[in-house]
Structure formats: C-alpha cells, structure tokens
C-alpha cells in the first residue's frame, strides 16, 4: 500500500521552548511541522509561494507583534486563506473560558497543554499521523 503523505501542521507560539518542543515531538510522531513565533511570522509562512497550506494550525492567543486574534482576522480578510478553511486548535492561558475563543477554532486547549491530550485531539481532527 502506498504510504499516505505526512500531514502538515503549523505551530504558532511565541514561547521558544514550548514551540520547539512541540515541533520536535509532533515531528517525531509523524507529522510535518513548521513553527512560527507570532502571527506575522505565521502569515508569512502561510503565504509562502508553492507551499501547501497546513492541515491544522495550533495557535497561541497571547503573542507579541501580531496575536492569535489579529492573525485570525488577517486570515479571514485573505480570500485564498479564508477559502482554505484551515482548522485551528487554540492554546489559551485562560482555563475557565473567560477569554472567548476565536471564531473558526475547532477546539480550545487550556494551558498547560498536555501532550497526550493534544495528540488525541489532532488525531481526532486529521486521523493518524502515519498511515
């Protein structure tokens, strides 16, 4: 059987340790993973010519320069990105939901994010990392 192409993920998180660890673990599990340090860097990644869009975006809300909310607004304004309908899993530091989730988010994970929970959620949205 022909192996299924690896699913691409984009991790948008300003904390370098969290971002790099998530990229490493998710890559090790079998996804193709890119990291972006803020919303602006994520937009540049999403608009890179010739690159397929990620199958899922993991997005922190609180970031410098361009935060998660502004990124979502930019995506909604960009016809091509909006049409792609990239599912978003939001990381929130507000575990009681006092901060409303982004429109279009498929799930909100309260920080601290547990890897077991995150992997199960990604699999439920995309299916297994490797066929």
């Amino acid at each position: 059987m022909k192996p299924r192409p690896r699913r691409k993920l984009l991790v948008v998180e300003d904390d370098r340790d969290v971002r790099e660890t998530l990229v490493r673990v998710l890559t090790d599990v079998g996804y193709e993973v890119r990291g972006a340090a803020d919303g602006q860097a994520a937009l540049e990644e999403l608009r890179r010519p010739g690159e397929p869009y990620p199958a899922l975006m993991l997005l922190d809300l609180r970031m410098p320069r361009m935060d998660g909310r502004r990124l979502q607004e930019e995506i909604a304004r960009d016809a091509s990105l909006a049409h792609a309908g990239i599912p978003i899993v939001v990381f929130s530091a507000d575990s009681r939901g006092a901060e409303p989730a982004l429109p279009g988010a498929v799930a909100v994970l309260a920080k601290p994010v547990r890897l077991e929970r995150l992997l199960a959620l990604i699999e439920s949205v995309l299916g297994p990392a490797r066929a």
Partner: protein
Amino acid sequence: MASARTRELPPLPGGDDPHSKAIRSAYGMYFADEALSAVRHDILNRVTAVGALSFELRRYLEPTAGDVRDRLEDLNRQIGLMCESVSRRLAPPRSEPPPRCPVREVMARVAGLCQGPVELLSPSAAKLSAAIDPVQLGVALLCVMENAVEACLEHPAASVQLQVGTTGEGRIEIDVTDSGPGLEPQAELRAFDRFFTTKAGHAGLGLCVARTILVRWGGDLQVTNRPGESGTRATLAVPAAARRGRAEGE
C-alpha cells in the same frame, strides 16, 4: 460612525460621584490583574514545556527500560497534578452574565476623570447600551484616554475627541482620537505587548488592561495612527446589549 459634533463640557468634573470613584478605584486592581496574567502565562508555558519534555523522554525509552520508565511515569503524573493545580489556582475570575451598560454615561464620567482637553461628542447616542460591566468599560476607556490626553499635553493646540456609534453588526464602537504627535512605528506595532512603553515611569500595561477587559466581554481594541493626519485613533468595540422585551418593562 454617525455623530453630531457638538462640544459639551464634561458633566461631572472632578469625578466625585460614586460611579466615577468606582472606576478610579477599580483601575489599579485591573493593572494588578494584568500583571498577574503575564505571570500566569509564563508559569503555564513553563509547565507545558516540562510536560512536553517528559512526554518526549518516555517515548525514547524502550518499554523494557524498567525503573527509569517507571520514574518518568511518576514524573508525568506529578506534572499532571501540577497542571490541574496551576489551572485551578491561577485562573482568572469568571465573568458574570453581561449587564446593560449606558455607554455614553460612562464616557461622560471618564471624560470627567481626565485632566486634559477632552471634547465629548455624540449627544444623540445617550440611549446606547452595551453588554459589558459599566465599571470595567470605564476602566478600559480611562486607560485609553490617559494615553490620548498625555499625547496632547506637550502640544498646546492638540485635543482629544470622544465619540460613539453603532456598526450595524450588533457592536458599539467608541472612538478616541487625539491630534498629538502619533505613535512611532515601533510603538504602533507593539502597542499591546505587555510591559512595552516608550515613556519613562510607565508600566506599559494600560492598553493591555483595556484590551483584556474588552476581549473578555466579546469586544476588541484597535490603536492606529490616523492616516493622513497627526495623532492616533483608538477604537473600543463592545457588543451591544440585547433589546429589552415588554416583560422587562419596555
């Protein structure tokens, strides 16, 4: 945004009424809350990173690695407990169901609290009600107004205008425009970075406090330089309150 450009004096100069005092006394509390939020965010990131590293280590070990793997399972269990504890103890207070906030009245009270050239417009908007706690809207607006008034202090001809209107999408927008020197490019880009400031003696939290409050109530804050003019425009957006039915007395 429709508005009648009629100059009005601040109706409550000095802010000695109980509502203005409530806004002033809540102001410091929300700054402390914003600083705590920054600490909470950092702690939660560190716990996330430690948990991810532990997860990674367990994956590298063979199932037969015995004691080492068992100890890592213990470590992971402790991290799970720490996650729950941190989430429970550092969570911000839950918001109450949205009340009806008389927006222009709050604007008038905050204008009365500001020591500067403030022009309050939109007299026809007296009946606009927003779904946000009035004291919290007052704190958010005061944070924004203090920046605007301060921007005008060294420029004698500069002033701050305050007006309100509806967007037709169930939102109310308060515009705070000043004719001061405007924001430097770096400051415009980093306006909402916690602890970022270009002014000596400032904490760099005011706009963050305002935005945190507005976002919690389903609103937002935008701050930009005015295109083609000097000065800045801050737009505080809040959801309009649902219309009252007959049963509620209207």
